[in-house]
């Protein structure tokens, strides 16, 4: 970036702030960092820049659906008879159909899932996941989903940055969760990505300054003092800038269009999610990230009846967004030459499901509340054995005898609850527990630990049942 040379020449700050400036580097700066920067290369050489010949690409995408998605409108449906008995809200008013997995597991699915069925061999449904027997807040259960702890902690998603990219995760929205390891993760969307790409490398300013900063930081790098450790981190961060800038420059996204007139909130959410999906795909393609979080922006927290009645429309949007993810990832090329869907493992989850109805409210006027006693997680893509239905929730008929544990946790019988399940053998337990025993139920940590096994994350990061408690068994049956 050049500056005005004459002291008499004024500088227009506004133009300086808003200008789009090309990224330039001095040869001395790049040699100081020990690496060259490849700019303006062909697509094939872009792939070569990104691809590590010794390492198969393996990306992770989490489709995070905050607000508590009612999975009874997807792959954990209930017969209409339950609605006729005033037990289960069903504003779709259609009978669900059976969905049998290749592993023999089965469930009911609604017509809303139809757009996903062309991909059914690529994903597996995991029903009956018990998030928590006691915590029912959005943030507490999102914390459990991401960290294994209702009080929060380190999210597992950044740990999938195993190629040590300068950015751990790109997240496309806000999550109500208490996460403490997002230092190298950034929130971006398709609109702001371009601005970041244009500006990130520019503000190293003169190479003399950056060289001086690096020299000083390297001089002070050590692990024996706070300053020494920060110096080391500054060096790593500075070294990441040109690499990040060059790769971001290769992320080609379509020009953002003006929103169509009269676009509804749902349509806007679908459109922005699609744009963000393409952004994440391109970033993975160009080696900017190995992990992305597509965070949906839909209103699913249907406590009131009118929101609950709108849910089929909102969930149709959820399905369209997921379907778009599969479409885009099956079209975009991975650095390996395969398709991105072949090289990406996908987890689709909300923080909990919902109650079947509200107490003492007419079934056709009822909203739904939080239900952390069951949840549905979907795994897809690389390393996943697709087509399975794993686990199940209870209360499949109006006259089912519910376990003592269920009745203790849900005396009004408003909720579905995950069935007792042995994670190691992937078999249902013929048990009717009197109380909640975490060893007898399928929990989200088993899914997360299976993903960590798949990615080869160091074993000391496996999620446990709690402080000083054993590691939660991994749901190995989900893996190919």
């Amino acid at each position: 970036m050049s500056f005005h040379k004459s002291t008499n020449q004024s500088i227009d700050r506004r133009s300086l702030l808003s200008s789009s400036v090309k990224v330039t580097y001095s040869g001395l700066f790049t040699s100081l960092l020990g690496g060259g920067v490849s700019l303006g290369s062909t697509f094939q050489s872009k792939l070569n820049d990104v691809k590590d010949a010794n390492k198969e690409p393996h990306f992770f995408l989490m489709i995070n659906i905050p607000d508590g998605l009612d999975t009874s409108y997807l792959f954990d449906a209930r017969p209409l008879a339950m609605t006729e008995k005033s037990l289960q809200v069903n504003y779709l008013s259609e009978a669900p159909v059976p969905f049998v997995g290749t592993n023999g597991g089965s469930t009911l699915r609604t017509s809303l899932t139809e757009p996903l069925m062309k991909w059914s061999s690529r994903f597996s449904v995991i029903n009956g996941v018990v998030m928590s027997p006691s915590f029912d807040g959005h943030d507490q259960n999102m914390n459990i989903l991401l960290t294994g702890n209702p009080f929060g902690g380190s999210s597992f998603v950044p740990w999938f940055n195993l190629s040590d990219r300068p950015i751990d995760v790109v997240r496309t929205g806000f999550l109500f969760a208490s996460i403490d390891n997002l230092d190298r993760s950034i929130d971006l969307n398709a609109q702001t990505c371009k601005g970041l790409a244009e500006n990130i490398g520019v503000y190293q300013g003169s190479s003399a300054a950056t060289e001086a900063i690096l020299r000083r930081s390297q001089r002070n790098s050590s692990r024996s003092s706070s300053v020494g450790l920060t110096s080391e981190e500054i060096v790593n961060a500075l070294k990441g800038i040109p690499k990040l800038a060059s790769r971001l420059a290769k992320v080609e996204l379509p020009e953002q269009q003006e929103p169509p007139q009269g676009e509804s909130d749902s349509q806007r959410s679908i459109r922005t999610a699609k744009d963000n999906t393409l952004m994440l795909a391109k970033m993975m393609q160009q080696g900017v990230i190995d992990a992305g979080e597509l965070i949906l922006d839909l209103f699913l927290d249907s406590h009131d009846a009118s929101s609950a009645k709108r849910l089929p429309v909102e969930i149709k949007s959820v399905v369209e967004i997921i379907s778009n993810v599969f479409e885009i990832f099956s079209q975009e090329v991975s650095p390996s030459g395969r398709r991105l869907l072949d090289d990406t493992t996908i987890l689709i989850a909300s923080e909990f499901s919902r109650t079947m109805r509200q107490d003492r409210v007419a079934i056709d006027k009822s909203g739904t509340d939080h239900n952390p006693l069951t949840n549905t997680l979907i795994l897809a893509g690389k390393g996943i054995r697709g087509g399975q239905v794993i686990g199940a929730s209870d209360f499949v008929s109006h006259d089912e005898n519910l376990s003592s544990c269920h009745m203790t946790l849900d005396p009004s019988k408003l909720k579905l609850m995950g069935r007792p399940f042995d994670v190691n053998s992937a078999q249902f337990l013929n048990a009717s527990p009197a109380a909640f025993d975490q060893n007898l139920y399928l929990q989200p940590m088993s899914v997360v630990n299976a993903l960590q096994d798949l990615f080869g994350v160091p074993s000391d990061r496996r999620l446990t049942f709690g402080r000083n408690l054993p590691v939660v068994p991994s749901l190995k049956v989900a893996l190919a």
Partner: protein
Amino acid sequence: MRTNLSKLVLLCVVSLLLFDCGRKRNNNSSDQDLPTPVAEQPLADSATRFRGYAELSSLIETSLMETKGAFSLAEYMGVFNSQFFGVTGIGALLGYYNPDPLNPGWRNVKPNAVGMSVYLMSFDFFALEIAQKSCGIPLEGKQLQEIALKPLVKDLFSTICASGSNLSESDARELWFALSSGLGPESDFSFWREDLKSIDPMTPVERVQFVTKVSLTAPWVLTHF
């Protein structure tokens, strides 16, 4: 949090004692006048911490500004403002304190590539304001914010603009001390002085930008103790 505030208060007191607004430059200041730098303290715990954005902005204000309450580093972040980063804002990128009762604590307080790029950019633009105030470089367009540098700091930057690295030893020390917020280790001063020689062929604005960026990205400025 209280411990952090009390440490910040201590730093402010030290800075005020040594950089009293009306104090003339003292060519006879000696090393004994400088407090023992905290930058060389051994690691107190395993969690070193980059200063959160708000804390860094406050530190710069305390060290360089005559009055408090008017300065915000975010004003210099251009496209990287809170609108750019959506609802999570600049704190999520550059570190902030989360008072969440379930799990209170500092978040995102390690340097990352994007954050360092943002800081370098913001220090570049901040330096333009300094250049205007100290060196009479006119800037078109609306002021981002009114900054009132401490007279001593303003004078020292004027010297930088006019004379490059040709500062007296005491002036160089005072500028280095101000820009490192009194935290720089003695061992760094000679290196900083040497680095300063790079500015001689530069334009006045480039000189101010160099000094600002190199000094404000010092690890002892960016680390919370």
